[in-house]
Structures are given as structure tokens and as C-alpha cells.
């Protein structure tokens, strides 16, 4: 957390987190950007949801600070819109007075936090830090999952079948009987699977299967 934020061109590729701010009031936008810059956080501010959507989101941990009352599209509607577009970015809502019902809705729809204007700077920074952390984690998870999917894709259909049955807790003999092959063949498949999936142990493979959403059903041949 030292030094000035780098220029946008270098940032686009850097791993540095970004805070996005959407508020129709330029003073508020500017003040928030200033606050984030003062703590070395990179901030990008937009006057409307529309402007935000125009920009290509960098693949870095980020969060979105959104005024719950936005012109044209309200903050809440925008939240729903992002969800529909499969953009999962932690949202911190800023609210004014008497916006409690809206806040409740926002929280139910998955907002990570909300702050009432005027807010304490530390509250805002804490909320942002937490949101970015959360995004970093989910990004990491997503990365792991993507990796698993890639590995899983290298398995043959028979190996996938075997993996499903193995992770469902069946013994080799049972699997052999189930799919009608010799027990030794099952063993060979198992070895290939462990290697291809880079699984260190059976429990490791089971966890992977869980993440991939593979159940024994998927291992059974289609009837």
C-alpha cells in the first residue's frame, strides 16, 4: 500500500484490485476516488450504470460501490441486471435516509454491505477491503474450478464413469461388476484418473468430484 496508483494501462494487466464507484453525483464520486487513492487503492468512478457497463472489466479482484438511488436504473435493478448477466462482483450499497426497505432488499439480493451517507471513511475502507477479499477468494475458487474442469475434460468417457463410481465409494470389484470389466482394468483406469486429475489421494479426488458436481448417477451408463 505504498506509492501512487499506476496508470490505467499498466493496471489493466496488473493483479492490483480495483474499486468501482457508481454515483450520479460528481462530488461524491470524486471524494470516494480521492479517499481510495489516498490509501493506494485503485478506483474507477462512473456517473451511471450504463457507463459502467461500457467499460471492460479487468480480471482482478474488485468491488462495486453503488448508490441505491441512481437515475434511470435504480441501484437495486442494476444489481439484478448484473446477476442476470452473470457478473459476480461484490456490491456495497450507499444509501440515503429512509431507504431501509431498499437496503433489506439489496442485502437479500446478495449485497455485501451497505453504508449510509455520510459514512465514516474507515467503515467504507473496511467494507471495501472485505469485499475485495471476498472477490479474491471467489476468484481463486473459480480458478481452481476452472482448472478441475480442464483436467476432467482430459478423461475418457470410461474414466469419467469410473471416477464417478470411485468417488461414490464403490470398491474396485463392485465397479468391475457394475460396468462389466475385469477388476484389473478398473485398477488401471483408477491410476489414469489419479494421474490425470493430479489427485494426491482418494479424499482429494472425492473433493474434486464434489466441486465438479459429479455424482454416481453420472457414472452410470445411460439406459
Amino acid at each position, binding site marked *: 500500500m505504498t506509492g501512487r496508483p499506476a496508470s490505467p494501462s499498466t493496471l489493466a494487466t496488473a493483479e492490483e484490485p480495483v474499486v468501482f464507484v457508481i454515483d450520479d453525483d460528481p462530488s461524491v464520486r470524486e471524494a470516494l476516488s480521492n479517499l481510495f487513492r489516498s490509501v493506494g487503492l485503485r478506483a474507477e468512478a462512473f456517473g451511471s450504470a450504463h457507463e459502467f457497463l461500457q467499460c471492460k472489466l479487468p480480471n482482478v479482484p474488485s468491488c462495486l460501490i453503488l448508490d441505491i438511488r441512481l437515475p434511470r436504473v435504480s441501484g437495486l435493478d442494476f444489481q439484478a441486471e448484473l446477476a442476470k448477466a452473470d457478473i459476480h462482483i461484490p456490491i456495497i450499497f450507499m444509501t*440515503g*435516509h429512509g431507504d431501509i426497505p431498499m437496503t433489506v432488499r439489496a442485502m437479500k439480493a446478495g449485497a455485501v454491505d451497505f453504508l449510509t451517507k*455520510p459514512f465514516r471513511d474507515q467503515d467504507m475502507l473496511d467494507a471495501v477491503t472485505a469485499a475485495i477479499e471476498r472477490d479474491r477468494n471467489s476468484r481463486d475458487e473459480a480458478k481452481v474450478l476452472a482448472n478441475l474442469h480442464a483436467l476432467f475434460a482430459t478423461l475418457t468417457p470410461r474414466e469419467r464413469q469410473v471416477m464417478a463410481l470411485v468417488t461414490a465409494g464403490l470398491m474396485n470389484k463392485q465397479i468391475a461388476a457394475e460396468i462389466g470389466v475385469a477388476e484389473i482394468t478398473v485398477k488401471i483406469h483408477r491410476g489414469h484418473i489419479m494421474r490425470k486429475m493430479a489427485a494426491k489421494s482418494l479424499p482429494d479426488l472425492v473433493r474434486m468430484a464434489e466441486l465438479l458436481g459429479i455424482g454416481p448417477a453420472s457414472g452410470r451408463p445411460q439406459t
Partner: protein
Amino acid sequence: MMRNPAIRSWRAAEQWLLGSMALALGAAAGIWLLLGPAPTTTPYFIAITLLVASLAASVIMMGLVGRSSRQMEALLQGRASAEARAIETLRNSEAQWKEVFEHNPVMYFMVDATGTVLSVNTFGAAQLGYSVDELLGQSVLKVFPAEERQTAQSNVAVCLGNIGRTHSWEICKIRKDGSTLWVRENAKAVRLMNDQPIVLIACEDITERKQAENALRQSEMYLAEAQRLSHTGSFGWRAGSDELIWSEETFRIFGFDKAPSIKRATVIQRIHPDDRARVLRTTKRALSEWKDFEHGYRLLMPDGSVKHVHARAHAVKDTSSGIDFVGAVSDVTARKRAEVELHEAQASLAHVTRVTALGELAASIAHEVNQPLAAVVTNAAACQRWLDREPPDLKEARATVESIIRDGNRAGEVIQRVRALVNKATDQKTAIHINDVINEVISLVQHQLLSHQVMLRLELSPDLPLVLADRIQLQQVILNLVINGIEAMQPVTDRPRELVIRTCQDETQIMVTVKDCGVGLATENLERLFEAFFTTKPRGMGMGLSICRSIVGAHGGRLSASANAGPGATFQFSLPSNQEGAP
């Protein structure tokens, strides 16, 4: 020549008489000769001679008599024609006079001392609807209405008291049919041969003149009355002698005693000292340009009271009277006072509705203050962090402080605007930009627009001339129209809610239009919208538009409503533009 047959017969009778006398003589001589005693030759001869002589004498006599009778006849004839001529002449002139007397369009009456009509001409009787016979021998009072009889009698008495002197008077008479006529009578009493005094009266019909006079008098009376009622006096200004000719009411207004004319210098002293210079400027310019003028000013009356008057004058070219300007001056004090009172009532009502409107806008206003406040707090925190750096980033800190100042001021301005609207603002007209006023209002309703999901489109024409107006009042007009627009679009769900505020101008005025796409205006309500307390809203007061109209009116503009071609309504008001700059 009418007498000729008579003269001829008279001559024949004369001749016949002489002839028969001669015959009688001859016959007597013959008889004496025949029957006389002892006719002898001598006496016989004598008798015959006598007979012949008498015959001859009778013939001569007859000739003589015939000649003299012819002479006499001629003489008589001459005398008779002269006499006839005289009679003729007399008759002619008498007929003429009779004619004149009868048909002269003057009514002649001759009455005796008791007032009995002795004579009246046909015209005179006819004018009164009578025949001559109907009046002769009657009392002349018959032709006077009851209320004039006394006067008529005394008029006759006056004449009789001054025999030979002509008197004249005007009096009203009554016709047989009951209608009246006005006459002017010239009368004179004279004594007849028998020493009886009579009164000769000639009278002419002056009804028309009298009517005109009456009409004039009445219209003058009406005018005076109208002047008194309307507190408007008239005046003429003789610039040459600097004299004013005033009507009664003008004297009353200015509080001077009535006089044929009054010096302008005297009048000027009565003008309120604060207005005097302005009045003199106006009249001086009017005089030098010979132009109509109009101005309002105050009078400071001797009792210390103040009157408001309004004068208008028209430049005239009337060399005969020497008058250069004629005009009217109205005492508008009562109206001024009523105006002030009305204005005060309106102002306090406007104030109430402003406060009410602001109540509705509370959330919006809170937001408007909160935004800059949030920015200030955030920036202050940021500033602290810039300063806490090692080394402190003074450049960033300074920039941040600038933002803080700006946002702090912005919050203050919102508060001030609200306070101005809440204040009982006094009428303060200044030259202002209408677009600024609109933006100030928008800043207060921004949030209201958002929460009602109303899209605002501003089409503000740049370079509009200034208008001379009270800022707060105009804000109120725009605020009311915007709130009405937002409310009208509340039920709309099938189309975007869009509110357009547009400004434009022509040569003399600027126009502000507020257009919505809401429920629109029902034709039957179009006329009533601006009435006080007309509302179609369950919680409406119905004062918004009525106040808007009076404010715009007080600024010399007009507010009107119209239905859109599509959905919604458009309200437009105009304001005279203030091209000359300051007032």
C-alpha cells in the same frame, strides 16, 4: 268692369225718362190743340210751333242729356275702377297678412287681461293639436301643464303691468294629446281702441334646442357624476401659460378649491416630493416631443395623507383654446391599497403553499444536502490520509481541501434556497437569468424526480435575455409546475415518465414550457385548472396553479395550459424580457 251692365241700364232709363217727358209734352200740346177752346190759327200755329219747339227741345235735351250722361258715365266708371283697385290692393295685402299670420311658423296668440284667447293663428293652434275654434274664447291656461300655469299667469300679469314693453321667456306647453313642447314667447300688452288691454304673444317652438340643452346638461351632470364615482377628473393643460383647466373632480382629487384655472406650479407643490422630479421629467419630455403620456405618482395632501393618482394625457392641437394636452387623472388610492392587501394575502398564501411544497420535498432536500455532506466528510478523511503520509502529500491535500470548500458551499446553497422558499420573501424584482432559476429548482427536486422514476430533459436556450423578476416567486412557479408534472405521471406505467423543461424567446418575451406525459387534461377542466381550490387530487389543495398564474400575471406575463398531441399536458408561461437591462 263688373258694374258696366248696371251703368248701361242706368243710362237707358235716363234716356227713356227724357224721351217719355218729351213725348208727354208733345202729347199734352196735341191734346190741348184738339180739345182746347176755339182753336184759332194763331194760337194753333203757336201751339204747333210750341209742339215742334218742344219736340225739338226734347230732341236737343235728349241729345244733351245723352251726352252728359255719357260723360258722367265715364266719370263714374273711372272713379269705380280706382276704388276697385284700392279695394283690390287692400284685399290682397290683407290676404297676404292673413296668410302670413295663419301660416307663419310662429304661434300667435291674443289674450285679454283674464287670459281668454281672443285670437290664435292656425299654425299656433295646430302646433298644440287644436283647431282655432277649440281655443277661441277659452282660457289660455288650457295649453299649459299644471305646473307651468302659475308662471304663465304671472308672465301675462308682468306684460299687463308694463304696457307697450316687450317681454320674453321660455316655458313649457302641453298639447291636446298630452305631449309637451318648449316655447320661447315674446309678449307685449297693448290697449285696444276701447281702452281694453290685451296681450299679444308670439311664440316659437324651441323643444329641440331645449332637448339638446337638457341632454347636454344631463350628460354634463352624468359626466360629473361619473367622474365623482370613478374618482377620475379631467384636465386641460395650456403649456404656454402653464395653466391647468380642471374638472370639479380633479379639484377634489388634488384638494384645491374650484377655480376656472390653476397654475401648474401650485399643483406641483402637491406632488409627493419623492415623485416630483419624475413627474416633471415625464411632462417635460411629453411637451418637447408633443406626445401622449401616462404616469402614476403620489400626492402629499396638506393633512399629511398620501394619495395615489394615475394620469393619462393626450396631445392636442387646439389653437382656439390654447390647450396643448387633455387628459384624465384617477385617484387610485383605494385600488392601490386593495392591491397591496391582495398582494399581501397572496404572498402569505404563496408562502404557505411553498412551505407545503417543501414538506413534500423534504426527502429530496435531505438528499440534496446529504450528497455534498457525504463528499465533504469523505474528502476530509482522504485529506487526513494524504497528510498522514510520509512525507505528507500536500498537493493532494490541498486539492482535497478545495473540493471540501466547494462541496460545503454547495450544501450551504441548498439550505439557503430552502430557507429562501420558507421565508416570507418580499417582492424583490431583479434582473435574472431564467435558466438559473430553473436549475435552482431542479437541484431541489432532483431526488423527487428519481424516486418517481421521472426522466428530466432540459432544453434551455442559451443567451436568453434577462427578465426582471422576483427570483423566489419564479422558483415557486417552476416548482409547482414540476411537482404537478411529476404527480400527473405517477399513474403512468406503460411509457417512460419524461418531463421536459424548455426555455425559448421571441422579440419581446421569454417562454418557459413544462411538458409531461402524464394523465393529461380533461377538456372540461381546462378552464378551471387555474381556479383557486380546484383540484382532482385527494390530498391536493388546488392552490398551485392559481398562485402560479397570479405570480406570472404580476410579472406582466401569461400562464396557460394545453393538452399535448400525445399523452400529457403542457404548461407554458411568458415573461416580458428585460432587454434594456436595469429598470
